[in-house]
Each structure stands twice: as structure tokens, then as C-alpha cells.
């Protein structure tokens, strides 16, 4: 039987959001099949998923035409509230899909809504915990979990309500390599139970041995359909033309590359000594690095597993984390902490928190009122923001917001810029733009650092790698031939 069937399905959102609609979608997914929707941001992947789980038009208002069949039944005949028994949905933002604040209650939430008996709910919660091996997460405060752990709880909660169809909207968008590995294992288990799965994703590599079919969407339509084998045969050029990420890191290995700098070539650099971080209540040092160097006018990638201390390192460097102690030298001279704080700037992952005013122009001036007029226009046009002077920063796209934050940093004379995960959840084209941004930065500031889990970004643009693990420096190397080998071995997810 067909688990999902879409017939001439079109949807257009009410209001300003006119672009992301879908037109004339025809799709049928067999029971037990796993289908992957790919395409650039705004191509309509999420809208297709919303039409399936009913959030469009029930929650996201708009006009729906055509037919949706779920497990052979017309969706029009199923009340929205009851769709959750058929479709279980996991969304991309781990911070905003929880209702309760305790993990075990949260897993039970869907079952409670279905009105199951207490005994049955407890049984199902325990089964979910056992199947996904998350005993360590039972009965805990959700706000204290990492993004990956939260996402596992989301899956467990959906599993407990026993839907026939799993609708997954970029479940890996905000996760790091290890967490993605865990999510992969979970999706695999769901597939083994012969459940139907439909996923929209930008990150493709972790799904390559799970999905059966891949549909490429563009401008709200399904334009191409691949079997897994056909998809794997696409060259990296063909993928990039479609704005897609590499489904296998080994593809990137084959690509030409031309950085030949050696360690000795980095003559200008900052030397950092005795970087430590110890919180009052803890007996251990969260960060403990004897010495490392940050070459100037290069693009430094900071890599490491989740919780390795990458963010602590960067926050400490910028003076945001007062528990971090470090001495920074340039040409043998100590840079005082105050100067370092004044000259450094960090672009946070959640860029919405970093914009405060009503227009891009005002935003850039904020915090540096004394340099009125100073080449502001020139700066903004070099970052591609010239046409947005009077636009409200919150009306911009994610990438543009990043640029506005950086413009404000440059305008206030910052010389050291750090970016935290600037490409999480981005498609290839957007990632390419971020890489371009880093190139622009390199010529404008002294120091550029990126915390990232994105191998494609590093290969595209970075020239130096700092590898931190368990609060300690594992290695630092320039991205020459040898460096690339090391990098590939770090990103080898089959290990």
C-alpha cells in the first residue's frame, strides 16, 4: 500500500512569504520506503513535509490544492489533531520542539495526548529509551541537554506515539558529527521496523545507506528523481550545479587543491600561552593549552568534537568568558586583555541575537558613534549590503544578517573576527557565499577564526587548522597536502 500519496498538490502561503510554496507535486511513497528530499533553501522541501503532516494549512496558513492521502485515506477526512497518530514529525531546531522540561515526561507527551492508559504509556516510554539506548538521558532536565541529546529525545517521543509515517525536517541541521552519527543510528532502527520515512535535508552523507530514493526539488517543484545508485554516481560538479552538498567526503579528496603553504611561511602570528579555564565548582580544567599559535591574515578553522572546548577557547580569546585565562603575544610583546577585548569580535551561531536596531545603516553605526561617515558605504558595498541600507536587519536572510553583524564589527575597528558555526544548516550555494565572506575578511582584518564542523567549508577556504579535544590542543597544522590528510582522517565518519 502507498503510505503517502500526493496528487497535483500545490500550496501557497498567505502573506509575504510567497516564494516558498509548491506547485503540482505528484509523489507516492510505499510503506516502509525511505525518501529523501533535497534542494537549496526555499525550494519547498519543508512545505511538502508540512502538507503531509498537516501543519500546512492548519498552522501555516495558505491555500492548498490537490490531494494528500495518508495510509490510503484522504487527509481531508482526517481531523488535524488525529494526524499526529499517523505522522510523527521531528523538526530542525532542538531548542524549540519541547513542551515539557523533563525528558521522560516529554517522551510521554504524544501518548498522553492520545489518551492511552498510564500503564501503556510507561511501557512505550521504556521501550523508546531502550531501543534508542538513551538510558542516560531518562528523567533529566531538557534545558541542560546538548542539541544532539535533545534531538534524540524528540525521536524517542515520536517513536513512543507509534506513527506509521516519520516526517523529518532537517533533523541534523544544528548538530555536530557525533550527534549526527547517533541520529543516523536512530533513523536506521526506525527503517528496520518497516516504517515509512520522508526526510528533507542539506547534509546528505549520513543518509546514504538509509534512503531508497532521492527527489531533487527546485522552485517548488520536483524536477528530478534518483535511485540511490544513480545519485551516488553524480559528480561533484553536477551536485554543485544543483546547490547540493557532497554526499561522501571521499569525493572531496579527489578534488584539485592548490594551497602549498608550510608552517614556516606563517611569519606573522599571535602566540597564545597558558590558556586555561576552570570553573569555580569544578575540579578539572575545562581548557588547558600550554601554547598554540594563530597565524595572522590566514583563515583558521577550529575543529574538535562536541564539548571539546572550542567555544570556550574562542569566548576566552574574545574576553567573553571571564574564567578563561590566557596570555597573547604579538612579536614577543604581550597584548593586554583590554586591547584584545576591544579589537576582537565574535559572530554567534544564532545571529538574530546580535542585531538591535531598525535599519542596516543604524546597526552598523551602533556602538561606534564617533566615526561618523567614515567609509561606511564602501564597507557595506564590499560586503554586498549596499542595497539594504534602510532595510530592517531582521527582514534580511540569514547570510545577510551574518554580514551585517560583521560589518558592524569592522566599522567599530575590530581586527580579530571569530565565527561560530557560520554554515550550519546551509546548502552548498549559501556555504559558498560564507566562504567568499571569509575571503573578504582575510584582507580586511588581522585574524579570522571559524569554529566549524563543515568539511566542505574548510576545504573551500581555510588555510590553517587548530584541533582541540578534551580542552587540550591535539594538533595545529597548515592545510598543505599533509594537513589535508589529517583533516580527512578527522572527518572520516566511518571510523
Amino acid at each position, binding site marked *: 500500500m502507498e503510505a503517502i500519496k500526493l496528487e497535483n498538490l500545490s500550496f501557497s502561503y498567505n502573506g509575504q512569504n510567497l516564494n516558498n510554496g509548491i506547485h503540482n507535486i505528484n509523489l507516492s511513497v510505499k510503506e516502509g520506503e525511505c525518501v529523501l528530499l533535497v534542494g537549496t533553501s526555499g525550494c519547498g522541501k519543508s512545505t511538502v513535509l508540512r502538507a503531509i503532516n498537516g501543519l500546512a494549512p492548519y498552522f501555516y496558513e495558505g491555500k492548498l490544492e490537490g490531494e494528500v492521502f495518508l495510509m490510503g485515506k484522504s487527509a481531508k477526512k482526517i481531523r*488535524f489533531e488525529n494526524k*499526529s497518530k499517523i505522522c510523527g514529525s521531528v523538526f530542525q531546531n532542538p531548542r*524549540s*520542539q519541547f513542551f515539557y522540561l523533563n525528558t521522560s515526561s516529554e517522551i*510521554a507527551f504524544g501518548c498522553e495526548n492520545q489518551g492511552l492508559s498510564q500503564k501503556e504509556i510507561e511501557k512505550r516510554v521504556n521501550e523508546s529509551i531502550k531501543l534508542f539506548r538513551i538510558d542516560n538521558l531518562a528523567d533529566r532536565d531538557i534545558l541542560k541537554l546538548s542539541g544532539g541529546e535533545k534531538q534524540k529525545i524528540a525521536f524517542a517521543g515520536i517513536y513512543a506515539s507509534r506513527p506509521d509515517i516519520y516526517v523529518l525536517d532537517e533533523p541534523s541541521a544544528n548538530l555536530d558529527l557525533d550527534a549526527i552519527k547517533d541520529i543516523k543510528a536512530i533513523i536506521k532502527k526506525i527503517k528496520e521496523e518497516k516504517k515509512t520515512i520522508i526526510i528533507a535535508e542539506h547534509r546528505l552523507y549520513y543518509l546514504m545507506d538509509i534512503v531508497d530514493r532521492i527527489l531533487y526539488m527546485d522552485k517548488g517543484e520536483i524536477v528530478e528523481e534518483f535511485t540511490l545508485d544513480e545519485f551516488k554516481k553524480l559528480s561533484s560538479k553536477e551536485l554543485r550545479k544543483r546547490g547540493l552538498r557532497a554526499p561522501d567526503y571521499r569525493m572531496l579528496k579527489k578534488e584539485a587543491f592548490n594551497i602549498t603553504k608550510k608552517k614556516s611561511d606563517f611569519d606573522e602570528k599571535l602566540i597564545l600561552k597558558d590558556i586555561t579555564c576552570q570553573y569555580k565548582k569544578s575540579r578539572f580544567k575545562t581548557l588547558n593549552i600550554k601554547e598554540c599559535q594563530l597565524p595572522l591574515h590566514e583563515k583558521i578553522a577550529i575543529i574538535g568534537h562536541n564539548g571539546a572546548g572550542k567555544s570556550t577557547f574562542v569566548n576566552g580569546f574574545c574576553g567573553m568568558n571571564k574564567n578563561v585565562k590566557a596570555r597573547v603575544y604579538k612579536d614577543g610583546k604581550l597584548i593586554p586583555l583590554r586591547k584584545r577585548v576591544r579589537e576582537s569580535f565574535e559572530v554567534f551561531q544564532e545571529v538574530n*541575537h546580535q*542585531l*538591535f536596531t531598525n535599519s542596516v545603516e543604524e546597526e552598523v553605526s551602533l556602538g561606534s558613534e564617533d566615526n561618523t561617515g567614515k567609509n561606511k558605504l564602501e564597507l557595506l558595498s564590499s560586503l554586498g549590503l549596499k542595497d539594504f541600507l534602510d532595510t530592517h536587519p*531582521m527582514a534580511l536572510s540569514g547570510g545577510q544578517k551574518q554580514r551585517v553583524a560583521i560589518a558592524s564589527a569592522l566599522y567599530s575597528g575590530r581586527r580579530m573576527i571569530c565565527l561560530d558555526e557560520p554554515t550550519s544548516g546551509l546548502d552548498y550555494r549559501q556555504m559558498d557565499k560564507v566562504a567568499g565572506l571569509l575571503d573578504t575578511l582575510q584582507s580586511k582584518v588581522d585574524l579570522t577564526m571559524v569554529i566549524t564542523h563543515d568539511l566542505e567549508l574548510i576545504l573551500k577556504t581555510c588555510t590553517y587548522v587548530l584541533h582541540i579535544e578534551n580542552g587540550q590542543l591535539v594538533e595545529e597544522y597548515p592545510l598543505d597536502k599533509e594537513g589535508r590528510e589529517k583533516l580527512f582522517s578527522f572527518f572520516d565518519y566511518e571510523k
Partner: protein
Amino acid sequence: MKSLDSTTKILCIIAVNLIITFGISIKMEFFILACLSLLFLTYGKIRKCLVYILIFAFMIFGDKVLLHYITIDWLVSFLCLIFITFRKFFFCIMTADFFISTTKINELIASLEKIHIPQVIIIPLAVLIRFFPTVKEEWEHIRAAMHMRNIGTGFKEVVFHPVKTIEYMLVPLLFSTVKIGEELSAAALARGIGMEKKRTNLYKVSFNMADYLVMIFSLAMVIFQKIYGGF
């Protein structure tokens, strides 16, 4: 100790608010402070309790001592606003904080269902309460970002440029909370909140002695204040 039921706590909020609207004497204020402190202490929230007592002591000190020494007109009216007007709301904030910081959402839903409050009221209320920790989390991030941009949230900026500072705090806070609120609602709906059928609740509600005592006491205090004018 077995904890109080959410219904009891809500009743406490209503009682405190009623008593305050009747207009109360200083003695009564101290009495309410003592009662609320006792509630905080039984939940082991010693630090929070101390902070509230200190704030209250400061306002009383300002009202009864400081104001007698100040002769500048505008300063007097400004301080009156803080020491006297704000003090009227002080207990409302304190009880609300007690409620929010000691109530889990599943407990709240369970007890409200028990006393047959309709779902249309319970769900928004639960979402609202669920939202406070999120706002707090967002606020921490925003404060870090403001610090990074040299936009002050310190005492000086708040006093000299209150409107601007508040604007800078609110713009990102509103945008990010609206976004999270939307995603949160979508997730809750997709998991079948508000299905017609009766919901199950893993949390079992039962009133115990402490609940009855607190309820009767609150009711008695309201009557005492209304009819006999309090202490």
C-alpha cells in the same frame, strides 16, 4: 515534604492579589512577606527568599527613613515611585515567581484538568509558563551579544539611556522569542496537543493536608482583610 498542588498555588496568587487590592497596612505587609518566605523556604529556595527579603527591607528603609531626608522635588517623586508604588506590586511578583519556579508544566496541566478547567485555557497557560525558561535562555545569549557590541546593560546605561537600552534589549528578544514560540506551537500541534479525547496524565494529582491548610489559611486571610481590615 510533599509539595503543594498547582491549584493551591494559584489560589495563593489570587489571595495575595485580592488582599493587596483591599489596601493593606505595613504590619500586614510584613505578615504576607513572612508567609511567602515560609513557602519559599519549604521548597528550599533560601537564596531567592533572602533576595526578596532584602529588596523589601530596602524599600521599607527608603520609604520610612530616606524619604524624610530628601528635599529635591523630582527625586522625591522618583523615589516614591520605587519605594511605595513598586512595593504594591512586590508581592504579586514574589508569589508569581514562587508559582513559576516551583511548578512543573505536567503538574499544572494535571491539576487544572482535575478541577475541570477547559483545554482552551489550559493549553495557552501551559505554553506561557513553558516560555519563561526559554526567554531566560535567550536573554543570556542576547546579553552576551550586547556585551560584544559594547551596548551596555549596566547600571549607568539603564539610568541615563533607559529607552534606548530597553529597545536594544527588546528588539532581538522579541524576534527570537516570536520565532521560538511559533516553532514550539507547531511542534506541540504536530504531536497532537488538544486532541478531543480525554488526555492521560502520567502525573497523578492528589490534595493533601498541606494543600487544605494553605487554602483555608489564604481564604481566611482574604476575609480577615476585607471584613476586619487586617492587622
